[in-house]
């Protein structure tokens, strides 16, 4: 075998080798993730995604209507002051900049809980569709965090005692059901911590205050 021929052979083998390594790695990656989920979990995933997609479809339709309305206003030479006001009110309530009221629930946590457990309750309420929340009179925004050791919890400089009240606005039966279902967060907390009790009360009207936080970024700027 002459030198150039051997080089061609080597190159060919190296090429094949590379291809196979990539194929093998790809095949191994494809095996992880969704395929290893149980049918039950996959069904939950499908339900979750379907609900969210339906919401998003509603949003797309709303936004399209809004855009059409603006275009129609402009062609008439009118400005959409009313629509801007409605929008502003909605976004400010949603963000926590303004106070809010509506139907909902009161959750009372009795006993010594770690910060993560209180966060779990808030997470559960968000997952159940709570639109606005307050914990011991402090409005819950994206960045509201419960911190501190057991017995010395606090939220945004407000100390939390052995009795913590959380108010949530939303569909009261859905919120109640999410917390009190079999194996739900209330049952989990009461099973894990002996002295802990969770009380959930549906209410016709709940009021939560505006946040004290500025919600104005100093280190980031809007990106077009």
């Amino acid at each position, binding site marked *: 075998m002459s030198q150039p021929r051997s080089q061609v052979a080597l190159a060919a083998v190296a090429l094949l*080798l590379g291809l196979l390594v990539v*194929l*093998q790695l790809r095949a191994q990656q494809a095996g992880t993730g969704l395929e290893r989920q149980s049918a039950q979990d996959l*069904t939950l*995933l499908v339900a979750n995604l379907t609900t969210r997609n339906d919401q998003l479809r509603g949003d797309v339709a709303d*936004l399209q209507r809004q855009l059409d309305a603006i275009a129609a206003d402009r062609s008439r030479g009118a400005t959409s002051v009313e629509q*801007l006001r409605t929008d502003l009110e909605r976004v400010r309530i949603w963000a926590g900049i303004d106070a809010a009221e509506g139907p909902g629930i009161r959750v009372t946590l009795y006993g010594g809980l770690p910060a993560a457990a209180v966060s779990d309750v808030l*997470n559960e309420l968000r997952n159940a569709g709570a639109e606005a929340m307050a914990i011991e009179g402090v409005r819950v925004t994206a960045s509201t965090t419960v911190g501190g050791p057991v017995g010395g919890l606090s939220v945004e400089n407000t100390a939390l005692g052995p009795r913590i009240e959380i108010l949530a606005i939303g569909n009261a039966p859905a919120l109640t059901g999410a917390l009190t279902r079999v194996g739900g967060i209330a049952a989990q907390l009461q099973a894990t911590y002996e002295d802990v009790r969770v009380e959930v009360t549906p209410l016709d009207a709940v009021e939560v205050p505006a946040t004290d936080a500025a919600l104005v970024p100093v280190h*980031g700027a809007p990106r077009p």
Partner: protein
Amino acid sequence: MTTLGARVRAIPTWQLTLSIALVALGFLVAAQARGEGPRVRYTTQERTPLVEAVVALQAQQEQLKAQVLDLRSRIAAADQAAAGSDQEVRALNDALLAARVGAGVVALEGTGIVLQFDDSQVPVPPDASAAEYRVGAGDLRSVVEELWLAGAEAISVNGERIVPTTAIIDIGDTVLVNSAYLAPPYQVAAIGPSDLYDVLAASPGFVDLVRARADRFGIRISVAQPASVTVPAYAGSVTLRYARLPAASPSPAP
């Protein structure tokens, strides 16, 4: 021994390289062939219809989110164009932009860090729970909370912006953020002061998290400090069906 040594030396290097490559090739061909058969059966059985449904729904969701973002930017542009002369409209538009920034429906760019969390590569002992070796919703919730406490102003996880309504939950092995299905590695991007990482790394909560997850189970945590970090806009609903302004105290909004 000497004869063998002499023989090995006599073989040209390219032949040695070639034979090593061929042996490796043989292994890979065998691995590929063995991996191929069972997987084809496995995937054709398991992928339909539930996995297919998840994949299709997730793809739909991406499209819908892109549509939402596109429509929002077109509305914002139309509002701005309408603003022109009218002072009231201009004031309303400015207030609306500020509210949208506060709500997290506007992308932000600034100083910050990106933390990456990935599943452990440590073999799971037979008596252990495999879930402990994976990054779960609890881990991501903890790091997000530690970032807020360290002074972060905006956070996203794999592109999903953390907003007031964001829930981070486990469904089986997967993590849902804003009802979007995310897969590892999880990249947590945070905008904040330039010492954000120093504050985070010094906080007992983050130290505990690293100790409990990385040191004990091999969860892979890494950090990057790029010159600028982008946190995308929330692409979901900003709709209210139950909450409204309290009747008693009217809005202080302009």
